[in-house]
């Protein structure tokens, strides 16, 4: 499988309702050991946008990109209901679709990723 | 050597929408005015250059006059090729072509002189060009 197979795939919740599509994939370096020197980057979760168009340009990551103010506000307004789906909530990949094991209302907002870290 | 230039200029003017057939008197008149403007601009350049003759190098003057002669000729060919829609327009066209063809003759005459040696009578040429420029401008103002 390739990463591009995940990006842009439609995401449906447990009731089959469309949540959006995959905009980015969060990787954490705690996967299997590669050649006994370093851990692999494992897929930790999916960042799912409701809207079909546009990229996030990194503005979903709270502290790393702050400005310019207007661009940030525009991108965030365009993607205000962007969600984060931990891999544990993914049920299976069915063809091009990604099916979740939870209902839409249980999904976390992407901004929770960073507010969590600060606390 | 430079035969391609008028053709290129003509092509450019076609693109710019100058050579489409004239639909009515007013359209023809506007075409005449813009032709007068183009020739007038070139005539004035030549006047300035010939007036400053002593300060210019010969190769430069030659290039300038060559381009000017081709430009005026190009506009004349172009405008001469437009069919006047009425008799009144035809008269107007002839009136303009008389001046622009005179301009073409003067400029190519100056070019011949520079090719051979230098402009023989700069102040006379400047006077003549100034007159041509003046009448072209008046034509343009009257018909725009």
């Amino acid at each position, binding site marked *: 499988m390739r990463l591009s197979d995940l990006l842009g795939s439609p995401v449906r919740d447990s009731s089959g309702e469309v949540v959006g599509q995959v905009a980015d994939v969060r990787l954490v370096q705690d996967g299997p050991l590669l050649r006994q020197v370093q851990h692999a980057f494992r897929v930790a979760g999916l960042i799912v946008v409701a809207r079909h168009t546009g990229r996030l340009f990194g503005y979903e990551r709270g502290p790393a990109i702050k400005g310019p103010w207007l661009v940030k506000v525009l991108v965030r307004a365009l993607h205000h209901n962007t969600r984060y789906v931990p891999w544990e909530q993914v049920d299976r990949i069915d063809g091009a679709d990604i099916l979740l094991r939870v209902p839409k209302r249980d999904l976390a907002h992407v901004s929770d990723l960073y507010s969590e870290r600060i606390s | 050597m430079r035969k391609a230039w008028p053709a290129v200029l003509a092509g450019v003017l076609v693109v710019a929408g100058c050579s489409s057939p004239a639909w009515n008197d007013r359209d023809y008149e506007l075409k005449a005015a813009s032709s007068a403007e183009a020739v007038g601009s070139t005539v004035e350049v030549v006047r*300035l250059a010939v007036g400053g003759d002593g300060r*210019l190098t010969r190769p430069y003057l030659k290039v300038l006059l060559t381009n000017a002669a081709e430009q005026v000729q190009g506009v004349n060919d172009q405008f001469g090729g437009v069919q006047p829609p009425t008799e009144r327009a035809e008269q107007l066209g002839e009136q303009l072509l008389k001046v622009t063809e005179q301009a073409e003759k003067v400029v190519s005459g100056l070019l011949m002189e520079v090719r051979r040696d230098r402009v023989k009578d700069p102040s006379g040429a400047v006077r003549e060009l100034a007159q041509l420029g003046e009448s072209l401008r008046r034509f343009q103002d009257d018909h725009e």
Partner: protein
Amino acid sequence: MKKFLGITLGILTAIGGFVDIGDLVANALVGSRFGMSLAWVVLLGVVGICVFAEMSGRIAAVSGRAVFDLVRERLGPRAGLANLGASFFILVMTVAAEIGGAALALELATGLNYLLCVPAVAFAAWLVMWRVRFETLERVFGLAGLALVIFVVALWQLGPDWGQLWHQASHPAPPQDEGVPTYLYYAIALLGGAMTPYEVFFFSSGGVEEKWTRRDLSVSRANVLIGFPLGGLLSLAIAACAATVLLPAHVQVDSLDQMVLPVALGAGQVGLGLVILGVFAATFGATLEVALSSGYSLSQYFGWQWGKFVRPREAARFHATILVVMVVATALILTTIDPIMVTEYSLVFSAAALPLTYLPVLMIANDRDYMQDKVNGIFSNTLGTIFMILLVAVSIAAIPLMLATKAGQ
């Protein structure tokens, strides 16, 4: 002296942007039709290009990444390819025009038909890009282009009515016999010329070629703050010369020979010689800048090894790109299409593509992953945002205005 030589990259870049063949004639044309009433656009352009060139130079110094790396990285492969396609097309057309311009300068000096000079000019330019070190190239042609300062001298000698020039400059509106759309069309052409994307392609890649690091941030800034205002000054001097000599005579400049006429009248044969040298150096330098930029942008999009800091065989695809571009451009100009027309159209098309280049620069200049502590401050961000809004407006208006005014007729 060494410090002075360090800013030749900025000077060469600015020459390619403000006084390459299209702009030389466009500035004179604008001066002869509108006087100095469009001077504000040049000033605006200087500020705009300074803001974005400073960002791209800073990014290159801190991260080692040039502008087209950023375009692909932030816009992704599709929008990046759209930008690459548009930019590359414009670059090839511009290379053709610049080769033609350098040949026209030789024609003015010798009286030899310019088409005869085209192959020699193109071959010489290719040889320089193939063999000459980047620093040498940028110094020789950056400094030689400064001969265009003769326009400032000539303006002085022409003894213009300064009060009237100032009056025109301080009343930004079209003269009576010109319409507002035409005025705006030329405003966009001038702004597009001042902020052509290949300036930041070349400037940031040049920074990488010179192996800038964090320690060179002040060098980068000096390049920007001296080079571009100098380019703007030359461009204003050209317009002022035309406004002084040609505007009162109702001349509408449309060729190189007409454009240098005020200098010849103001500063005599020496002036004429210098201005022809300056035009040649500027257009030849612009040929190098634009042709190298075509290699930079294609290589950076696909991730190929690029640059003159390695042997040509180590960057084979980069050098092959330049070679092909030079061959195609030479063939194009030998078809006798008018080089000046070509750049005037491509200026407007490049105005339409401006935001696609400058938006990624603005975003990455704010990205701490790239810039660490050197991210944009409030000043750069405010100016950058204002220009972004302006550029979006310009890119929407550019092509409709071109069609409506029949390219400024």
